[in-house]
């Protein structure tokens, strides 16, 4: 649990840094311009570097994990998605993997009872939480494009409309909140459930490292401060857009009157972006490169090339025959070379009992 506390505290400290920096020290340019630029550069440069770094290592063997019938005899129906033999089907397999988390959907849970009696039941919660979280994150990310685009594209307006279909105005509190965004709710819900899962399931808690807790807390922090700026503190959206447009057009400005809570939100986002390439979050890029998923299972049909295939020491037939020629002739086995010289009369080597292996 040290990792848990370490990560939670780390995120709180990060919030504190932003508050101190902007509110106490008035370092708005640092937190509003320099850090965002640095984070975004780190993100893209890091992402590209990591992917290229992985790609630099070759794939010496084609080792897809096959999850269905192979293509063999013409009258046996192959499973083309889970055991693809062409690039087209591989792309489809990958699309299912990346877009629908197909492998996670296979998940089942061990049910171990006295006896022992072992059963497996369907377990879709991890898949559900993961889908919730990732798609909500995607929508939230896209929604934020409204700060960087003028005029706001129609598609984005449609998305926002769909996203905000739950008009929750809470009139009884007299607050007149802006439309509640479904994506934000699902994002916070998804990430919280993923966190809860790590706390509640003993095995998952046992395997969790600080580097697993940290991004969860960080994203929770981002979602909460985001919600805070939208529903509670009511930040000055016009100024924020001015600032965002400035960043996007490389004419950064730092308008006055933006709440410190916005800076906290922004800073946490920057930390996430900068942390991303150095963390497990790189599964975003890695999933596309996984050799057990992205290769066709056609290795008996097409030779896969290993770029570093090197010659090895083998024990060839002739060495073998040299070792056993006499015994082979004795046993009536054909040989390439007859005995070179007549052997002195020797007791026939009995088929010595080989070691029991």
């Amino acid at each position, binding site marked *: 649990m040290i990792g848990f506390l370490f990560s939670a505290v780390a995120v709180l400290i990060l919030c504190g840094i932003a508050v101190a920096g902007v509110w106490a020290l008035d370092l708005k340019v640092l937190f509003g311009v320099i850090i965002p630029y640095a984070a975004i550069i780190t993100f893209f440069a890091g992402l590209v570097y990591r992917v290229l770094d992985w790609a630099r290592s070759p794939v010496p*063997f084609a080792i897809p994990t096959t999850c269905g019938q192979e293509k063999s005899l013409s009258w046996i129906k192959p499973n083309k998605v889970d055991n693809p033999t062409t690039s087209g089907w591989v792309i489809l397999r990958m699309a299912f993997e990346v877009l629908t988390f197909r492998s996670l959907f296979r998940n089942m849970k061990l049910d171990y009872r006295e006896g022992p009696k072992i059963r497996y039941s369907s377990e879709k919660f991890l898949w559900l939480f993961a889908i919730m979280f990732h798609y909500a994150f995607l929508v939230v990310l896209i929604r934020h494009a409204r700060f960087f685009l003028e005029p706001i594209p129609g598609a984005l307006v449609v998305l926002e409309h769909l996203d905000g279909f739950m008009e929750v105005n809470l009139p009884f509190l007299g607050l007149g909140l802006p439309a509640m965004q479904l994506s934000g709710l699902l994002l916070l819900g998804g990430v919280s459930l993923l966190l809860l899962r790590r706390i509640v399931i003993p095995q998952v808690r046992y395997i969790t490292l*600080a580097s697993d807790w940290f991004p969860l807390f960080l994203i929770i922090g981002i979602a909460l401060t985001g919600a805070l700026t939208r529903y509670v503190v009511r930040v000055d959206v016009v100024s924020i857009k001015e600032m965002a447009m400035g960043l996007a057009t490389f004419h950064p400005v730092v308008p006055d009157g933006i709440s410190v809570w916005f800076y906290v939100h922004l800073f946490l986002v920057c930390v996430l972006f900068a942390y991303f390439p150095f963390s497990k979050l790189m*599964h975003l890029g890695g999933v596309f490169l996984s050799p057990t998923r992205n290769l066709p299972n056609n290795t008996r049909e097409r030779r896969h090339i290993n770029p570093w295939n090197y010659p090895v020491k083998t024990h060839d037939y002739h060495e073998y025959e040299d070792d056993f020629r006499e*015994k082979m002739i004795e046993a*009536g086995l054909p040989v390439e070379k007859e005995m070179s010289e007549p052997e002195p009369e020797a007791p026939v080597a009995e088929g010595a009992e080989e070691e029991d292996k």
Partner: protein
Amino acid sequence: MAAKTPSPEVVGQVDHHPPRKGWMDTKPEFKPGNYLYAAQPQNLEGVGLANPRTWNPLDDDWQLPADWKGTVREGIAERLQRYRSFKLFMDICVRCGACADKCHFFIGSGDPKNMPVLRAELLRSVYRGELKTAGKILGKMAGGRKLTEDVIKEWFYYFFQCTECRRCSVFCPYGIDTAEITIMARELLNLLGCNIDWIAGPVNNCFHNGNHLGLQPHTFKENVEYLLDDIEEYVGVKIEPTFNRKGAEILFITPSGDVFAEPGIFTFMGYLMLFEHIGLDYTWSTYASEGGNFGFFTSHEMMKRLNAKMYHEAKRLGVKWILGGECGHMWRVVHQYMDTMNGPADFLEMPINPVTGTVFNNASATKMVHITEFTADLIKNDKLNLDPSQNDHLTVTFHDSCNTSRGMGLLEEPRYVMNKVCNNFVDMAPQVTRENTFCCGSGSGLNAGEYLEMRMRGGLPRANGVKRVHEDKGANMLACVCAIDRAVLTPLMEYWVPDVDCCGVSELVGNALVMEGQGEREYNLRGEENPSYVPPPEPEEPEGEGEAEAGEEGAE
């Protein structure tokens, strides 16, 4: 010597809750029955592996070579550069835990380090702690740890407690394959001379004598001749196969275990009968007399060194193509590695079934066909004279081998064959078959006698699946297409589901084959009276020529 294996009641009580102590602070406890004996020095010397010495995993001092830490660090770095799989799998795991309860060793032992994610972390933590800046500085907080002798001991314990079955990789959202990680870890352990003897021995044997068992050429032939005598006795047909014959159309290669011990030998007899039945122009090789490849459980290089025999011998004999027998990891190697390592097989021809004319396009490059692909094709084209009622006393279920399921996709071929040679075939539940199949618990070279308790634990999920189909549907025979399976499922069934026996698919084929000129089939290939045998009606008509009862009586 060997530990007494506790009763199924005791072994079956498994607690899956992890301990309070973090996993970096716990050590494995080497106890009789849960670890494997160390490689004998002569077996390492024989093939030029590092650091041959006499040692014991129970020793405090494992006599690691000088600068072993540097060796491991360099070994990791080199493999990161060579294998994208390894590099990626070191980096992208999010520890979601989807794999946790998918491992048969975790299910059967409850040991949290048998969760695939933690097994991988055993190596990842060193990768971070020794090679990555963040891990070097932050240590545990960044999931890193330093290389110590205890780490090597832990690796030895847990990477020889993984059967490279790939079940976890089916469920991983990124396809992280623990088999890849285990393969790398075993390569690293081999750099230090920390192999197990049950792997090192067969490797050395195979390299010099042509097969894991170390059968010398004349002995291999003799063993086959014993089986031919049995066939003559029980079936009434005399078969005379050839060995090392140049100019044969097909070279047949199968694991040597099947020429040596029950029940594999009955599968071997099935092959002999099948090929005789269709008049196949084929030969056995005493040099390439091993289909399996324990080199695969040692290192990629050793796998290549042992596998080279197949193409080398096919070329020397001038055959057109290679037919391969029933074996799990052999087929992973043949299917996913052989052509890449030792190809191109341009000296061979496109495999064509000489009896049916079927072209095996799926093997057009490797030029090696699986026996059940071959048999299924024969049956589909009605080329076999079969009497499935010979297997009527059996209700057969099927164990999908890990390697042929998840590293190839051979699922329907054996099922088709079984459904044609038996009248009663029942499948186990989908959660434990096909790509979801459970390991026998003894794969990847762990089928040693001293390891029996752990093997029974690892095999528990498999056995439980069988038990269910035995209780619900009356299954009494567990068929498989793997020589290790045949050797280990037999004791596994004895332990967990004593009423179920084990056989190879080709044994069922052999028993159902109606051979030309055969005698009464009162006995099956095991020499047991066949309960399904129906004696021919007594010849009542006096004009009967009396040749029926004169038929070559099989029994002595």
